[in-house]
């Protein structure tokens, strides 16, 4: 007769369970954790901005995220890449990119995130010229040791994903930015001919800054733009309600009112 039968109320010692598992005398339920589980943001319905970033994130808090299917304009895939020194591994590249993300952005633009980790929400302020800063943000959708991806909120110029990655090609580490986007609404779609040039300048400068960080001073940035879908999604024209350009202007115009209210 076993000890357990004599004393049924006695809990089984953890050592006994471990031994039984080791000797395979008991079945262990197979709960398979996906390899990518830690890399994805948890599901969110509406974005939440940390209190200390609330002023900058007025166009982000409470918004839903949008993928290319929720956008309005044609679907574009834009890819920028730069070759780095072979001594830099993709893991090193991405680690440094995450740590210094904000500093790689071109001057005059602000990235309000503190951490590039799945689920983080970062307000951003993009210089549109003429002194106006367009306020919007991003959600860190995915982050693994060799890549990370942002997803845009409602009202952002673009509905889609931006992936930053590193990979090895011909024994050289390549830094890459790949954007899958549609403009969010008809107004942004009308501005696309200008916006795409601004975007192009923005990401090329970002790539140059990343390359310079790794000691490549005159990086050759290659860029490629492919139209994946020529159809506009007219069913999403109402996205204009959240247009961050319009809302940023309104926010600027109503600043004196907020100042007076705060003073009372």
């Amino acid at each position, binding site marked *: 007769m076993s000890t357990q039968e004599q004393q049924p109320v006695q809990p089984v010692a953890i050592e006994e369970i471990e031994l039984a598992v080791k000797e395979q005398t008991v079945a262990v339920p197979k709960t398979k954790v996906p390899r990518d589980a830690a890399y994805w943001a*948890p*599901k969110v319905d509406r974005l939440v901005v940390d209190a200390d970033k609330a002023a900058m994130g007025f166009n982000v808090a409470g918004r839903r995220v949008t993928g290319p299917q929720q956008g309005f304009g044609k679907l574009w895939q834009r890819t920028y890449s730069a070759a780095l020194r072979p001594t830099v591994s993709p893991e090193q590249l991405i680690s440094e990119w995450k740590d210094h993300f904000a500093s790689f952005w071109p001057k005059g633009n602000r990235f309000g995130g503190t951490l590039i980790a799945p689920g983080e929400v970062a307000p951003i302020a993009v210089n549109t010229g003429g002194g106006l800063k367009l306020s919007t943000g991003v959600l860190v*959708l*995915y982050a693994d040791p060799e890549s990370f991806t942002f997803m845009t909120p409602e009202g952002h110029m673009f509905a889609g994903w931006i992936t930053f990655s590193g990979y090895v090609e011909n024994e050289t580490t390549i830094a890459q930015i790949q954007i899958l986007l549609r403009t969010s609404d008809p107004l942004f779609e009308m501005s696309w001919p200008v916006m795409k040039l601004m975007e192009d300048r923005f990401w090329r400068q970002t790539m140059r800054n990343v390359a310079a960080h790794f000691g490549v001073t005159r990086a050759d940035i290659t860029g490629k733009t492919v139209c994946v*879908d020529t159809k506009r999604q007219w069913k999403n024209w109402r996205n204009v309600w959240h247009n961050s350009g319009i809302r940023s202007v309104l926010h600027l115009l109503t600043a004196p009112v907020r100042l007076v209210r705060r003073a009372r």
Partner: protein
Amino acid sequence: MTTPALELDVRPVGGATAVIDIRGDVTATSEQPLSAAYDEATNTHGAQSLILNFTGLDYMNSSGIGMLVTLLVRANRQRQKLAAFGLTDHYRQIFELTRLDEAITIYDDESSALSSASATS
């Protein structure tokens, strides 16, 4: 010999419907095999409804989700229906998070997906 990261099988199931069985990893390198599977389902089997079977999905990163968007665009262009089944809770949540579930109908199992496909075809 190394095992390929992604294996795809195309099964015509009648009624202009094809099931694409996905086994392994869906990443940026999946573009060519996914495109080939789509071509086989469409051109060889004349499928108007495509059902993705994710029962054997082991890993998917954000580039993999991008590949599915490309597949969806191709299907929409041909006025084909795209559905999915066999997603674990984890991958179902990713579909919901990325709002891909608004464009690709998700079913619990193959029979439900097939019933819906046959009802709409």
